[in-house]
């Protein structure tokens, strides 16, 4: 097994890419935007700012995961780095796993730094608000939200690797990744609307339900309301079930990626 050298090389490469620092800088900018929006929107300014900050956090990690996983894997294949790697005693499945692991490490560090930026931003914004006492519970809840965002990033990265080994066009792979993410994010509300509607035929309801269970559901990882509204409680079984779903789905996606890559002519 030569997974770790590939993971280390991928991690080093991704950390030094401009997109890593670029997106983190963008995140700081988005925090300022969140503060500005909270000033013009009616309601609890801190909650509004938190809502926007965590939404931007969620989408920035998603973007980083899509771009880093597809970009890095695709570059390896199109720029022939893959020849240097696979001419060594590295199996194709080791490459896929190592690549994925390296991307996961980079996404993990990106999420951690984003968490640090967003939490600092939220604490500063809440301390600036009158009659608002920043509470440690908020930080604890942002930690939980960040872990879920990290899982979402890992989930998307697995799909990124799959799309990069499947498609021969990087643009097509990136657009497919973004499409997959956006559809996966809106799946729950669509299912709710369709299944509760009396105007939709039973067959169409069945199709939507089948698609709902097969298609990757990214909305499961979006629990920012849990941090914004302290009254919301999520049962422990939800965390457990989402974690099992995440592990099984990622394993399946990696198995398919390995299967495709093993047969691909380079």
């Amino acid at each position, binding site marked *: 097994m030569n997974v770790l050298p590939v993971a280390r090389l991928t991690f080093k490469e991704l950390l030094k890419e401009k997109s890593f620092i670029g997106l983190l800088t963008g995140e700081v900018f988005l925090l300022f935007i969140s503060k500005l929006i909270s000033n013009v929107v009616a309601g609890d300014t801190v909650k509004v700012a938190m809502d926007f900050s965590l939404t931007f956090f969620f989408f920035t990690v998603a973007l980083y995961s899509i771009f880093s996983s597809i970009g890095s894997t695709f570059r390896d294949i199109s720029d022939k*780095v893959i020849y240097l790697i696979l001419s060594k005693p590295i199996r194709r499945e080791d490459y896929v796993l190592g690549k994925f692991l390296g991307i996961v490490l980079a996404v993990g560090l990106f999420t951690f730094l984003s968490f640090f930026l967003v939490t600092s931003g939220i604490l500063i914004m809440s301390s600036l608000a009158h009659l608002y006492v920043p509470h440690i519970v908020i930080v604890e809840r942002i930690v939980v939200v960040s872990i879920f965002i990290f899982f979402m990033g890992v989930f998307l990265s697995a799909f990124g690797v799959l799309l990069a080994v499947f498609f021969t066009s990087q643009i097509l792979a990136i657009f497919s990744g973004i499409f997959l993410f956006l559809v996966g994010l809106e799946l729950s509300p669509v299912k709710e609307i369709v299944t509760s509607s009396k105007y939709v035929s039973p067959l169409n309801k069945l199709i939507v339900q089948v698609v709902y269970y097969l298609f990757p559901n990214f909305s499961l990882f979006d629990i920012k309301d849990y941090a914004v509204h302290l009254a919301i409680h999520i049962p422990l079984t939800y965390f457990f079930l989402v974690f099992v779903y995440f592990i099984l789905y990622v394993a399946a996606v990696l198995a398919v990626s390995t299967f495709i890559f093993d047969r691909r002519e380079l």
Partner: protein
Amino acid sequence: MGVLQVNNIKKRFFRKRSLLKKQEVWALKGVSFDVRKEIFGFIGPNGAGKTTTIKIILNFIRPDSGKVSILGKSNREISVKKHIGFLPERPYIYNSITGKEYLDFCADVYGIPYYERKKVFLTLLELVDLIGVEEQPISSYSKGMVQRLLFAATLINDPELLILDEPMSGLDPVGRNIIASAMKDLKRRGKAVFYSSHIIQDVERLSDRVAIIVDGEIKLLDTITNIVQKFLKGYVLTVRKVGSNNIEVFKTTPGDFWPFLEKLRSEGYEIISIEPERLSLEEILVSYIQKKRRAD
């Protein structure tokens, strides 16, 4: 037994003619050769099948039929890759990492312990004249420096078989000389070097044996000495009449050589020099390409 044995490999691709029509193209039509502990040159025009052959040897693509074995084992076995070094044509590695980070990656793969790395890296970097730049990002290297770094990295596992795809292209004379010296040194140490090249002079200078591939078929496989003898055009004789200062030059074909020599002797000429007139490897290659074009 050869270090590398390629037995009757065939490979076809499908070229899109229109939306629904695909044309079958045979890139390799039964290629066979073996590489011993020697420097083996693999030459041919563009699109002849050199890179396809190399990709099959390294299991990047699979042949439609035929077998490749390296050190007696199938090329599909991962263990054989421990004994191979490979440098692709116009190689590229991430610009953001440093030369040392790439060497570290290679050392990780081959399990070279950390305490040995400094010595190993120093030897390799010295070989390719890159000492002092290993901590700099690869983005600051010239094309030739990247190629030399990656060449050095192919030697990190002391390979039994080194496979190089156009190793000299894009290099200045100093870089070419570094790689040529390293190849000769490997051969001296009982290793096999298999390489493709467009620079025929280098192939003629370095190789023990050469295979010429044209249109997916091996047209000629022999030692450089034999090839040159096979393609002897004739002889150039420099002579003068006994007692005269007038030097005359004659050309003769190999078949007419002895009767012509007898004629000169009977006419009272003395021979100053006889030089064989040979086709260069480049001319031989061109003649095969022209033959193919005429056949098409």
